[in-house]
């Protein structure tokens, strides 16, 4: 564990300021060029309805949704890493991602045939709902398989998660194989993630779940610190380890499920943001979870701003950018840490 040599009290306020700055920054950038005065008067003076619509109905909900999803994915990644006591863990291990993928693929492919009458207008909501249900069901299955006598073995869970994810991926594969060209395109884009349809309804659905998730996980940050010592040790310290496990998994599945449902799969964030913070500040979940919330939001806002501007008038899937920006930066940190002989 590294020791951060600085005033820990300023970490969170600093991150919050960066978050505010990035929200304001993201408001200024877009394919539609608006000057600072135009943005100011559109938001506060309500002079020009077109600009106001653009900022309040298109740019702002998109920023809000990306912030919520960035926060949700990275905080749940941090918690899962704590639960598995493994910095390489992320949400995919509990099956939520592959389950959501499977159900989304099913709904995309079957909407072409069986569900043809439900058809076009409901397609997006059907995919979202299917992904959410799929994520929760698969997670429940993984949890159920690794629990007996009210105890959940984390190692069993890890292996069950891998096996069930592989199985779900295989079934997804069958349907991808059966999909026609249009469906294949939908599936590919879905698995690369996007905020391109972001609106306030999505924010209203994601918001409460992510906020409940964040608070729920933060309440368990001390327990996660104790689990870091080992499960038995945590029990001696008076932590109800089993209860913590089931809560963390439930909260994570809910959060990640709703995030994936709205935006498709956005990889890398859940793994890298907490890991990066751990490299810099060390593993204290009381700090790590909070910092993950803010840094995850900042990272996603910045990446999405790039996604919607750099190739305008079209846009890049967000999942491509999160990995393209995150991975090199992460490698640089790793190399730097190695040079300084810091254990990760």
């Amino acid at each position: 564990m590294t020791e951060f040599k600085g005033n820990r009290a300023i970490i969170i306020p600093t991150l919050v300021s960066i978050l505010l700055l990035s929200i304001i920054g993201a408001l200024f950038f877009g394919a539609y060029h608006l000057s600072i005065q135009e943005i100011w008067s559109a938001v506060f003076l309500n002079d020009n309805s077109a600009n106001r619509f653009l900022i309040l109905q298109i740019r702002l909900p998109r920023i809000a949704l990306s912030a919520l999803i960035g926060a949700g994915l990275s905080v749940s990644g941090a918690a899962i890493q704590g639960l598995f006591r493994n910095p390489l863990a992320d949400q995919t291990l509990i099956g939520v991602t592959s389950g959501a993928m499977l159900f989304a693929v099913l709904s995309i492919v079957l909407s072409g045939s069986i569900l043809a009458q439900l058809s076009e207008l409901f397609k997006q909501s059907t995919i979202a709902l299917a992904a959410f249900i799929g994520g929760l069901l698969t997670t429940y299955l993984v949890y159920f398989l690794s629990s007996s006598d009210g105890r959940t073995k984390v190692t069993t869970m890890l292996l069950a998660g891998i096996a069930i994810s592989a199985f779900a991926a295989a079934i997804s594969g069958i349907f991808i194989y059966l999909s026609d060209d249009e469906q294949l395109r939908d599936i590919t884009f879905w698995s690369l993630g996007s905020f391109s349809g972001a609106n306030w309804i999505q924010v209203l659905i994601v918001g409460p779940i992510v906020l409940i998730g964040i608070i729920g996980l933060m309440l368990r940050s001390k327990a996660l610190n104790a689990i870091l010592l080992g499960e038995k040790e945590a029990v001696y310290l008076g932590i109800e380890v089993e209860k913590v496990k089931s809560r963390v998994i439930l909260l994570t599945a809910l959060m990640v499920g709703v995030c994936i449902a709205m935006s498709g799969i956005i990889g890398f964030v859940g793994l890298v943001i907490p890991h990066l913070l751990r490299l810099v500040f060390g593993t204290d979940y009381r700090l790590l979870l909070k910092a993950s919330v803010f840094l995850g939001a900042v990272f996603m806002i910045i990446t999405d701003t790039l996604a919607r501007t750099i190739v305008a008038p079209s846009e890049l899937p967000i999942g491509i950018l999160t990995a393209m920006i995150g991975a090199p930066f992460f490698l640089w940190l790793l190399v730097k840490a190695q040079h300084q002989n810091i254990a990760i």
Partner: protein
Amino acid sequence: MLINISLKLKLFLFLLGLATFGCQSSSSESITSDSKETKVVKEQKAFENGKIVSLSGFISEVLYDLGLEQQIIARDVTSTYPESLATLPNLGHVSQLNTEAIIALQPDVIIIEQAQLGQFKQYEQLRKSDISIITVPSSHSLSNAVHAAEYLKQYLSIDKQEIADLKAQIIADSMKLESQLASISEKAKVLFIYARSTGRLMVAGSNTSAAAIIEKAGALNAISSFESFKPLSPEALIEASPDIILMFRSGLESLDGKQGLAQIVGIPQTPAYQNNRIIAMDGHYLTAFGPRASKAALELFSQIYIDPL
């Protein structure tokens, strides 16, 4: 523990309800307000010289044919014909649109095919901004372009003569086709193979655009046992035993031509391959059912029955 579970269940059901409600309310609203919108547009009649964003290759070609090309200011990735469209901003695929960028172009109207609505996530948002959206119904018929033109006439100022010309040309082509079809004694069995390199080979079942054009050209679609596209299998190939294999030119190229096609198990055993009856045509031309659909059907007919290459 029991209470615990039921609590979880309740929470789950609550969230489920929330999600359903949220999604559905937005969708159903869009249906009703769409019809309202359409009415308003009708009364005002038309986007005289209005700026158009076309999100379908079919629509773009129809607009071009009707002499409205000057009004198109941006296009989607499938709008490839005529080639002059390539100079317009490309908005990408309809499922991956950049809402702001479309608004930045300040179009008066966005035109899309009805069948694409499910991928058009920005429908609601764009409708709420001052941009009108026209959704054009389409079908697999040779007069599809005429129907689209007549539908668009309600909103755009289209020269009546242009539509009449299009109609006359399609009728002439259809009659020519009709008379030629009469001379056919036995229908050829045509298998359409969609290829995007060897990793992705699909065959067209019934109810596909490929099957439709094959039937228009007076041939039989080799597969009638299933609908839509399915992965190609050697057994299905042999069972279908097509007289002719039809492909997109780009598809055949992705397999490195006929030699590449022969590498696919089952292909060399088909009568089509043995008699060297492989037809490759431009994908958009063949299956878009645009203004050139009747020409495409005629060309396909002559390639099948008159002058096999």
